């Protein structure tokens, strides 16, 4: 019996000391968790890497968790630190940062990797492949391309609501669900598309917004989609996401603006919801405001006709009237049908425009129609020999839209407004 007890104690001691992972032990407090990683073009062929990590300091500035000391930071945000370094590669740059930061930089909680547009237009495939191989990066982090510098974008990235920067980034990224003006793109989606024979990769498109209402010279076209940095707004937060960047393998070749991105999401069947102002047919200066959302998954039929690849796309949406600025009673059934046709034609034009842009301007299958077209081939060899991505610009794509106005907000019939002029006469 004593031998058994001794064996049990010995086993417990050995297990406790060995199984706790003494070689790979890392205290949470021994690391800093980069939540933003930015890549710009550096000097002499190097890249400039910027990282941002939270400092875990309390609201009063108290170093509650023993965060990095103030003299270590290059640029201090309200609740985070930003460091920039130049190095030949991303991972080496992170390693080099460890020579000046007292805690090891970890990418395990990175929320997004941000590339400057200048750098993305050259080729980022090597960096993406490197990150894919690196065990600390999460498949769920986002890939962003920013107009201007990634470093500036990260410097402008601060949490204006609440103290948690990582929560702020996560919530900003999920805004895509409610606005549909930019897509949700995760690292694994980007990497998968980058080496795919079916489609081209896309990334979020962002930028710094320094819009000045006083000195604004930009002409705002009501239906022209917005690109990052050009949204006519003034707010605490300078960074914004709008639209998407389009790639050929690892090289950015163009972008879709916010409205084109909404159309892209509709075609993909990933459009969740979004407000849309459609000009009233009866009054050109008035709008009808809809909340448009997905009703059913997009149906895609891919086939060959006379030897040419053809894609039939049927998008399913439904709309809810939120505001009618004119006096027209669109709630009446016959007028509702008319309005449906109007909004349908408006959205279909947008869809057609986006498809055309992807074919003629970008020459990139961002929709992944190739996945459906591949169903017409039996083997991978036949499919790859067909070379879908180079065929894509000449493919015949027939989009159609099923749209129903289902509801009219909280008002089911508007009351006839009193004509003030007639009243005055009385």
């Amino acid at each position: 019996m004593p031998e058994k007890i001794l064996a049990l104690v010995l086993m417990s001691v050995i297990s406790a000391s060995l199984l706790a992972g003494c070689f790979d032990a890392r205290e949470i407090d021994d690391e800093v968790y980069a939540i933003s990683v930015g890549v710009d073009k550096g000097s002499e062929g190097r890249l400039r890497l910027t990282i941002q990590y939270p400092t875990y300091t309390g609201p009063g500035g108290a170093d509650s968790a023993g965060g990095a000391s103030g003299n270590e930071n290059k640029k201090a945000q309200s609740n985070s630190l930003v460091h920039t370094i130049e190095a030949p590669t991303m991972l080496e740059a992170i390693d080099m940062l460890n020579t000046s930061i007292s805690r090891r930089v970890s990418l395990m909680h990175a929320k997004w990797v941000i590339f400057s547009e200048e750098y993305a237009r050259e080729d980022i495939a090597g960096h993406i492949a490197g990150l894919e191989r690196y065990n600390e990066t999460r498949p769920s982090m986002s890939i962003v391309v920013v107009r201007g510098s990634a470093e500036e974008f990260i410097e402008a990235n601060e949490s204006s609501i609440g103290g948690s920067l990582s929560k702020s980034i996560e919530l900003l990224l999920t805004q895509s669900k409610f606005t549909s003006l930019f897509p949700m793109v995760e690292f694994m989606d980007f990497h998968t598309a980058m080496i795919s024979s079916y489609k081209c990769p896309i990334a979020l498109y962002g930028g710094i917004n320094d819009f000045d209402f006083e000195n604004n010279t930009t002409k705002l076209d009501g239906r022209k989609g917005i690109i990052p940095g050009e949204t006519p707004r003034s707010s605490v937060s300078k960074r914004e996401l709008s639209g998407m960047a389009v790639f050929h393998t690892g090289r950015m070749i163009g972008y879709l603006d916010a409205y084109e991105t909404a159309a892209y999401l509709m075609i993909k069947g990933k459009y969740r919801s979004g407000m849309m102002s459609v000009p009233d047919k009866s009054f050109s200066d008035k709008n009808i405001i809809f909340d448009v959302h997905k009703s059913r998954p997009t149906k895609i039929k891919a086939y060959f006709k006379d030897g040419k690849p053809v894609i039939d796309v049927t998008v399913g949406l439904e709309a809810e009237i939120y505001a009618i600025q004119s006096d027209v009673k669109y709630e009446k059934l016959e007028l509702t049908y008319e309005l449906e046709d109007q909004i349908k034609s408006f959205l279909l034009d947008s869809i057609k425009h986006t498809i055309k842009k992807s074919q003629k301007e970008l020459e990139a299958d961002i929709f992944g129609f190739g996945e459906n077209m591949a169903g017409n081939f039996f083997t991978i060899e036949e499919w790859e020999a067909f070379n879908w991505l180079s065929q894509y610009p000449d493919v015949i794509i027939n989009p159609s839209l099923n749209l129903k106005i289902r509801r009219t907000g909280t008002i089911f019939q508007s009351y006839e407004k009193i004509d003030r002029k007639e009243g005055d006469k009385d």
Partner: protein
Amino acid sequence: MNSEGKIGVFEAISFVSVITVNKIFFTSVGSIISQTGTAAWYTTLISCVVTVVVFMLVYMLLKRFPGKDLAAIFEIVAGRFIGKLLILAISAYCVFNAGSTLREFVEMIKVYNLPYTPTSLIISLFLVASLIISRYGFQAIARLCAICFIPSMAGLVFILLLSANRFNFNLLNPIGGHGLEKTIMFGLSRSSAYNEFLLLAFTVNALEGHRDYKKAALTSILISGVVFSISLLCYLSIYGYTSGSESISGVFELSRSIYFNRYVQRLESVFLFIWVISSVITTTASYYISMLLYCKTFRIKDHLPILLPFAILVYIVAILPQSMQEVTQKNITFLRQYSLYIMYLIPAAILLLAFITRKKGDIADA
């Protein structure tokens, strides 16, 4: 006495299923997709069907010799000398299987979780666990499998279900993969991946007769086939054939990619649990069967004295490969694609020899 004890059908099913399905957590997913592309999910079903055919042959052999396990039948049919040689060959294969599986696991856990822990330490700790479990014999291993079987399967199903929002079955196009010929040929050779039902044939007396063996082996082959096929189908429908062939552990990557919201993410810890448990069991099963066969060959009644020597043998096999590439491209490729020449051809040849020599067991032994 080196008795295997008695186990039930469920324990037997769990034993074979756990150690067969364990491969889905390793490099098998990537390598089968790189070889067969989009056809991977049904290639494994071809392997499963081939295995069922081989199983029927093994079952015919067992039925011919009632009350005898496969090792005893080898000796009866092929003679004591050749029979013992064949049993020793399979024992050596089991040592190789245990060591290679262990090293594959160690390399993967080093990539993802323990990069700085010495390989030798992880191997040693693993073997200590295997040694302790094996000390209590086959019955203990089978019971451990029965306990872990449902949680392991539930964990796998949990990971696949949580990944369901990413499924895009269009990624299974083109449906033919790299062509029917390549798919069938690879499916045939890959049937080696299902050979664990044979381990049970060496301990068939632990079951209540050959009918129980038939039930257990057949059910576990089918369970393994369905699990492999569904897992590959789900994985392919997320990553496609290009990206899908890259990952060192497809299912682990799948668990890492789960992101529902800020609260439901980073679920790989669930995966780690089932991964470690099933890897311990797989290594232990192979390690134990290798000892058992050695004992049967030399009529050794107690396996306890050879626990340590065999653990050292497994350690040597595990430590020999110099890199991850060597493990996957040599050891694992041999195990998954070429081991059928040992594990399937030997019993088939013995059956043929039994027919030719008209050797049969005694009904009284049943």
